[in-house]
């Protein structure tokens, strides 16, 4: 693992990302946009909030991602009685050695799937969010660094809001992207059914077919390369203008903060890498606006009554923001 290639060239990085994308796409059928956005979050070292009905292959996606860079994968099902220590870990008194032993929780992993994060109370959510923000885990006052790379994929169910603890805006802001996962289209679903049922006994797709294409230690290097992708001043200006417009846009009761601008540029850089480019264009920014901003703005009451969706409002707003002037 230590034999990471710090001298990885841009061409190498592009090739590797492309192969990762390809490998995941072999298993996760019909969710190319979701795969791309999750990869973008990984490259930009952000976290993802996934919203979608159950059974669309979220676990499979995380497993596949973990497999393709030989990473560890953990999963926590959030329930109302979940305690913070169930996430982070706890100290255990060992009778034999008469000492406290630290038992590390599921957060000590590369990819953490936090299923239905809004079902756990705020205390437990906060424990996870601390790990996300600080990249360290505190057990009994002792801080342990989280593994690198560390990425959380939290899922939310858009229906069944009864008895949930919705994440407050400040905590939503920690997620770089909010990905909306939807049903695959007809052709893709046929391919999926064919793939799952042919020659298999179980109902789930296996990730055995995925080849490991990068090592876990390569991911920080890739992240470093992503952070150095060229961004022209005009593009910076465009991203900031979009975020600032959201603050005065009539459909929103509150717009996105500066974290949104930061996330927008980071995501656009990763998107450029995914598109096999070494510079960011305004298109990269524009394409990332929906996933970056949809959980950071709130519609006004009137717009909600009118039945406007956040994505529609954002799209309308984008139509009013002038593209960069070079």
């Amino acid at each position, binding site marked *: 693992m230590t034999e990471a290639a710090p001298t990885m060239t841009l061409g190498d990085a592009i090739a590797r990302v492309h192969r990762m994308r390809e490998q995941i796409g072999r298993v996760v059928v019909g969710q190319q946009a979701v795969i791309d956005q999750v990869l973008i979050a990984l490259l930009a070292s952000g976290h993802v909030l996934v919203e979608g009905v159950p059974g669309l292959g979220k676990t499979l996606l995380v497993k596949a991602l973990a497999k393709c860079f030989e990473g560890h994968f953990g999963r926590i099902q959030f329930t109302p009685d979940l305690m913070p220590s169930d996430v982070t870990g706890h100290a255990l008194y060992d009778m034999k050695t008469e000492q406290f032993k630290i038992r590390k929780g599921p957060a000590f992993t590369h990819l953490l799937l936090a299923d239905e994060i809004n079902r756990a109370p705020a205390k437990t959510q906060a424990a996870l969010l601390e790990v996300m923000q600080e990249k360290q885990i505190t057990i009994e006052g002792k801080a342990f660094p989280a593994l690198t790379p560390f990425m959380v994929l939290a899922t939310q169910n858009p229906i069944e809001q009864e008895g949930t603890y919705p994440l407050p805006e400040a905590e939503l802001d920690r997620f770089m992207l909010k990905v909306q996962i939807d049903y695959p289209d007809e052709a893709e679903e046929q391919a999926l059914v064919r793939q799952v049922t042919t020659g298999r006994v179980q109902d789930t797709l296996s990730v055995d077919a995925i080849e490991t294409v990068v090592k876990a230690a390569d991911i920080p290097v890739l992240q470093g390369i992503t952070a150095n992708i060229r961004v022209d001043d005009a593009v910076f200006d465009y991203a900031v203008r979009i975020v600032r417009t959201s603050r005065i846009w009539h459909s929103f009761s509150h717009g996105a903060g500066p974290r949104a601008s930061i996330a927008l540029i980071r995501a656009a850089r990763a998107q450029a890498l995914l598109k096999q480019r070494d510079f960011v*264009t305004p*298109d990269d920014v*524009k394409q990332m606006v929906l996933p970056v901003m949809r959980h950071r703005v709130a519609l006004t009451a009137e717009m909600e009554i009118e039945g406007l969706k956040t994505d529609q409002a954002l799209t309308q707003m984008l139509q009013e923001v002038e593209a960069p002037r070079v």
Partner: protein
Amino acid sequence: MDLSKITARVRPRNPYEAADLGIVMARQWFRPLMLLWLLPSLPLMLVLYGIFHAQPLWALLILWWLKPLFETLQLQFIAEALFNPDARWQDFAKKIPTLLRHQLLAKLFVQRWSLSRSFNMPVGELERLGGSQRARRLSTLHRGANATSIWLTLLGTHLEALLVSALFLAGWMLVPVEMSVDFEIDDLLGSPLLFPTLAWGGYLAMWIIAPFYVCCGFMLYINRRTWLEAWDIELTFRQLAARHAAPHTTPTRTLPVLLLGTLLLLPLAQPSPAQAESSAPARTEAASFTPEQGLQEISDILESEDFNQIKTKQALRWADDSARRKAELKGEDKGLLSDLGNWLDDFFKDSPGFKTTLDWLAAVPELLEILLWGLVIALFVILIYRFRDFAIPGLRRQTKTARTIPTHLFGLELDQTSLPDDLIAAARTLWQQQRPREALGLLYRGALSFLVFECNLPLEDSHTEDECVTLCGRKENPARADYFRRLTAHWVRLAYAHQTLGEEDFTLLCEQWPNFAHSEVAA
């Protein structure tokens, strides 16, 4: 028409009650009535729809215009059903061609536009009156029931409109809540399905409303005649007579009834209703009666004492000002106030300005009237101006697209006047001056300007480079789209990555420019 066979209870009703009875009748014979309308109209509608399938509203309009023909059949049927319950379908079917031909032109051109059509129809169709006779008869009948029949027509029209809207609403309500259907009203108005739906919806609505409309109008007519001709009394007498004509099983009881009947009959049977069609075949003395004699008799009766009783009524009312004024002039009322009034009157009459003021004041109402009319006209002008772009269904306009063409895109001046005449030469010069950014910028600007102004590509300020390429690829021919894609790729690399393109790439772009900016290809 045999009054004694009538299947409804005859009594004088108020018009609304009569219309109500019409509804009951329509419900009673709903199926045959619906069928009678559908059988002739549906083939016609199908043919018309076939002819005007591009403009289906014309089919609906023509069918609407022909409505009296279908309603004639319904009216005949309902009249038969009311007065002759034993009538057979076969007999009725034989009469249909004659019924349709009767007063065909009058029905379609003159009588079609009357608001009380359903009420007037029986006069032409059942009494078979035409021309001035019909007009006179209608003027008699209209006294008392015309308003209701007009309301009936208005109500029917509105119900039809309501049914058509209900059709749309029903479609809308059947969309599941989970499906978010967002549509613009413009999309709906521009939908190719709108006019066919409207046409068939309108047909359906006319079909459903027609039986009620015809029956209500007919019952209004019957009711009016019941009032005019005292049908209820006549029926009672006929029943008495029938019982009298029956074998005398109980003579002791029949005799007093007969006597009473005769007593009642004497004053009432004499005045025959004005201009009413003599419907009872039993009334033999009416046959020897000329209309002139009838009119003479009517005027005699009207001049008789019964119609000329004078009653004195007392009530409070405002005093007549002119009478008071006259009294004042005569000096009968000499109060202090009156003196003051007279003095003021005299004073103003003598002053020279008063006369002109008075004239001026008299002109005020006229002025106001002119002003109001002016306002109305101005309102119309404003309304017409305001809705000048309103699309009238069925009318094609040569609309000029009101799309605002951007003059700037990505900070580039797109106005064609800002571009040099020989774009390529200018770009080459810039390139030779080691100013690749300006050179490629000029080419890109020229391409955008060409797409916006020559190809009418709907580019907006918010479109990014890739979106322009996508849009161009969707609307333009592949060769042009490919050139624009390559040009954009070079431009994006130069603008955002600061990577200059090679000499040969630039030369190639310049050489292929004429193929791109070629107006004939654009067309």
